[in-house]
């Protein structure tokens, strides 16, 4: 593609062009500026808490507005556990579904199914939340959790994950609802990534005498791997920031950190949503803003990682060096 088509005009001999260029350029900085402004504002409000508690803010798990002891460890833990749980459950299912759609499903089925999946990704999270609250959580309490406790709970070390009273509104249910919510996102991105694997990679492998399964295993998946990891990370980022649905099923009660997934808990997002109206003291408010800063930075880092990975797959052959 020529330089002009890419928008890098040679010299700026035309007055109008350069003016246009400069205004476009300044527009490009608007989102960057907004992001910096947002971080700066959060930083400003979070500073009193960060300055007062320092590292303890991240390592302790007391959250006591009365005695002004604030430690976010339990919320960070809840966020990480539920998000990872969602990711671990959703990713294999999503990639399986994407592979099925891109490689096995007949043409007539692909369009409608892909469309349905996009639609699922667009459902407002309050709807997932209501469903989780009225359907999933009761089901977890009455059936799924007792079952897990009886089976997996008996296994030595692993069993610790499935011990304690089965309440139904806990980390496990939150992780599950997150898995359901990020499944469509990961599936539809994975499908795009898999479709972007060049046919010559598939045919190259088939030409060596590979079966369809071997072709997917040895040509499609390795080529798509960075993109699939990117899809999973985007799903993770979505899970990290998800508020509504999680708040409705996570229990919002304990700041204990225990191995059991049956512990009711909090995530960063759910604690912010629950408590920001109650923050009557300056330091309480500041601590809550500090939580949102942590959440923002974590999602930012993960999103950037995802984008780099996805770009590496879709931009053509990897490992090209000249």
């Amino acid at each position, binding site marked *: 593609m020529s330089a002009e088509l890419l928008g890098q005009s040679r010299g700026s001999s035309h007055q109008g062009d350069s003016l246009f260029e400069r205004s476009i350029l300044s527009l490009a900085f608007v989102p960057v500026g907004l992001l910096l402004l947002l971080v700066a504002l959060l930083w400003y409000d979070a500073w009193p808490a960060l300055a007062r508690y320092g590292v303890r803010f991240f390592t302790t798990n007391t959250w006591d507005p009365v005695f002004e002891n604030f430690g976010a460890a339990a919320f960070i833990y809840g966020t990480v556990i539920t998000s990872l749980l969602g990711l671990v459950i959703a990713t294999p299912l999503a990639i399986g579904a994407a592979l099925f759609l891109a490689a096995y499903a007949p043409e007539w089925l692909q369009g409608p199914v892909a469309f349905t999946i996009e639609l699922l990704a667009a459902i407002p999270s309050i709807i997932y939340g209501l469903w989780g609250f009225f359907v999933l959580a009761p089901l977890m309490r009455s059936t799924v959790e007792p079952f897990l406790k009886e089976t997996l709970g008996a296994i030595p070390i692993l069993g610790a994950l499935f011990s304690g009273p089965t309440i139904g509104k806990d980390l496990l249910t939150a992780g599950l609802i997150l898995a359901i919510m990020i499944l469509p996102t990961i599936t539809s991105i994975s499908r795009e990534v898999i479709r972007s694997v060049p046919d010559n990679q598939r045919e190259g492998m*088939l030409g060596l*005498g590979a079966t369809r399964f071997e072709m997917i295993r040895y040509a499609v998946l390795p080529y798509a791997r960075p993109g699939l990891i990117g899809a999973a990370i985007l799903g993770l980022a979505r899970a990290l920031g998800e508020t509504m649905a999680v708040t409705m099923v996570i229990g919002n009660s304990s700041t204990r950190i225990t191995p059991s997934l049956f512990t009711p808990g909090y995530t960063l997002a759910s604690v912010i949503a629950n408590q920001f109206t109650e923050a009557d003291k300056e330091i309480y408010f500041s601590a809550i803003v500090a939580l949102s800063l942590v959440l923002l930075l974590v999602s930012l880092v993960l999103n950037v990682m995802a984008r780099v990975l996805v770009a590496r797959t879709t931009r053509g052959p990897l*490992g090209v060096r000249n």
Partner: protein
Amino acid sequence: MSLAKPMVAERLERPVSSRGHSMQIRGLSAYYGAKKAVDGITMDIPANHITALIGPSGCGKSTVIRCLNRMHEVVRGARAEGEVLLDGENIYGPGIDPVQVRRLIGMVFQKPNPFPMMSVYDNVIAGLKLNGRLDKREADAIVERSLRQAALWDEVKDKLQASGAALSGGQQQRLCIARTLAVEPEVILMDEPASALDPISTLKIEDLMQELRERYTIVVVTHNMQQAARVSDFTAFMLAGDDRVGRLVEVGPTDEMFTRPTEKRTEDYITGRFG
């Protein structure tokens, strides 16, 4: 040879040049969905010779060559009719597994397509790995032998662990040839193997084909007539009619085709009057 159950291991034990493998195409027609792309091709592909398919762009050369190892049907909605025989056995016959066909009839594509996530080494043995574990010594030997046969060994022997995509275009194409040779096919199909390459790389590939002819039966598509004249023993000329369906005009020994073609259309094409 048995198409229904050949084992690569078994084939590896067979002395490579024990005998040649010939193919016959009988009334081959190919379709993309409802559209017929190629009609009624009948011709022979003699063992241990190079047969070139020439003709203007869009006349169906790629379609035909892809029918020769059942790669055509990989395209959604594509199918073929007629017979293609390998040593007398119809590769479109009932009970024939296209996967086994492709193990015996290897293919090199127009655009070099090494596997970028694999090293040069792993690219070469990719096809063999499909058949199960190889021990390291055996794999080393096959990698070296295949790369030598593909005239690439000296250039890559110090970077066997580099990505296959880190090589130059010409080297990538020879890597793809090495990868095809590693599974010891009986026939090698090449669809414009040098069209994406510079003149020097092109010459290397052409020289290589001359050497490979000793051991393999080769079919090559090219739209470069000089190339066909230089490298091939037999030439088949194809042309698409007004109905945009490709047909075989004539086939014969290359020197005859280029000096005294029987068909007026062949002469017109060869002398550059169209296409």
